[in-house]
């Protein structure tokens, strides 16, 4: 038979015993009451914005930032996935230089608060790199390679917007977190898999690509999903760069109208809505991957 899901076939589960009906006490203990709490908050929020014009106005204003929050997160997360995969592979490389560079990167990032990293990368590291490009461009022009040099020399500090810098900062930061996830995922695959692949004549890279990574990535999908949710929340930090995400817009609104209660209530609820929806998606994914054997 073929599996159309494209996802691991569920194990023929002979171990799970026949479902025993649960006692009332067990049902009470296991019922996800907290979901009820969320439900009440949702109804309360809906009630607020529909009945109280000040909340409705705040929502109307703040939701302008949703697009920036989502695009910033999506771009940054996609780049972080690439950085994380490369750095994760670097962490387990047999090449001493590569391995130590990757480890240095991960340890540096993990040792600094995200807020500080965002300031540092956006306002120090990016301008400094631009400065280096500029100098290199000037030098190339002076030695007669103006066709490469001039465009480089023309780069100035404003050519990279704060929105883009915020994305760079978030990606570099999360790249280190994702690197650890990828590394753990790869190391969770038994070494017999690599040996079998190599014994068939595959190179290290082929074995990684066709044998190890497909299994490793499947194992870490839930962890990657959790970090995506975390990044949605951490994207609020880019407001310190005056990027107009929902946090920044809410701050502007509050500053202008002095309606702090409205602005921050709406802001909190918007984040909650986004993260809850995403968390549910992650859980669904996790269920699909592991069959129903987990509770």
């Amino acid at each position, binding site marked *: 038979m073929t599996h159309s899901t494209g996802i*691991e076939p569920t*194990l023929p589960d002979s171990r799970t015993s026949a479902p025993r009906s649960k006692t009332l006490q067990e049902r009470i203990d296991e019922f996800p009451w907290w979901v009820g709490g969320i439900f009440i908050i949702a109804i309360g929020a809906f009630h607020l914005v529909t009945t109280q014009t000040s909340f409705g106005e705040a929502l109307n204003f703040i939701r302008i930032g949703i697009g920036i929050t989502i695009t910033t997160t999506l771009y940054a997360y996609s780049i972080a996935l690439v950085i994380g995969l490369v750095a994760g592979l670097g962490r387990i490389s047999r090449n001493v230089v590569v391995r130590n560079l990757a480890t240095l990167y991960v340890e540096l990032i993990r040792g600094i608060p995200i807020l500080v990293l965002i300031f540092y990368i956006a306002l120090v590291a990016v301008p400094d790199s631009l400065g280096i490009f500029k100098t290199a461009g000037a030098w190339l022009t002076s030695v007669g390679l103006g066709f490469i040099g001039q465009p480089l020399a023309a780069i100035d500090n404003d050519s990279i917007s704060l929105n883009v810098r915020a994305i760079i900062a978030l990606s570099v930061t999360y790249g280190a977190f994702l690197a650890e996830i990828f590394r753990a995922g790869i190391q969770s695959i038994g070494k*017999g898999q690599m*040996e*079998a692949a190599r*014994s*068939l*004549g595959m*190179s290290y890279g082929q074995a990684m690509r066709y044998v190890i990574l497909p299994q490793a990535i499947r194992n870490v999908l839930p962890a990657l999903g959790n970090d995506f949710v975390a990044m949605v929340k951490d994207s609020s930090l880019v407001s310190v760069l005056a990027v107009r995400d929902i946090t920044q817009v809410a701050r502007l609104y509050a500053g202008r109208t002095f309606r702090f209660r409205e602005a921050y209530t709406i802001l909190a609820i918007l984040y909650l809505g986004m993260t809850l929806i995403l968390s549910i998606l992650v859980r669904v994914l996790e269920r699909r991957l592991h069959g129903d054997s987990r509770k």
Partner: protein
Amino acid sequence: MATAGNKTIIEIRNLHKYFGDVQALRGVDLNVERGKVVVIVGPSGSGKSTLLRCINHLEVETAGEVWVDGKRLSEKNKDINSIRAEIGMVFQLFNLFPHLTVLDNIVLAQRVVRGRKKDEAVRIAHEQLERVGISEKAENFPNQLSGGQQQRVAIARALAMNPKIMLFDEPTSALDPEMIKEVLDVMLALAKEGMTMVCVTHEMGFARAAADELIFMDDGLIIEAGPPAEIFKNPKHERTKLFLSQILSH
């Protein structure tokens, strides 16, 4: 030298292997001729797996030389992947790729290593599955197969590369007793077809039926080697005697 006569396909000279302070091999010499079946036995920790894994460079020798089909294996050998493609290996725990169907397990290396077209690789995969007697399982995933079936798929996967040599490291010792025979039968057939085989196994029935040479290892050395019938009848070393009496008695 190593190519001396085209008869020799594996030549091992004075092979030493250390794992840190542990000396797993302490000077092993071995010649295997084309088409011969060599069975290696010996107590646990005597270096059987290490010797086998040095033949396809899953372990890198500390000293000594390993020559396969006229090529010296060494750390600097950029050719190691193409040499390995000529050497099939079957592991105790099968090591099938769990994310791929049986068919794709057999197709993968044919395509990425041998560069075969999809149609050709699939056709060969089906042929090999037929050869090991499980063509009906092509679309299943490994975890839907019994141990014996998985090991036969592993053999088919190795054979699909058209190897010149097959290495077996205790291929039946992880199997339930009723499945051992189906795997040994495949190995016997392979031996009859003239495949060069080096097998670590304690299945003495297989050794008796198929082996041209039985090698007894102890403590990192080959201490006795010869035709199985002779060694069974007339072991020279005390340790060989003791070991054979132990494994033949149960």
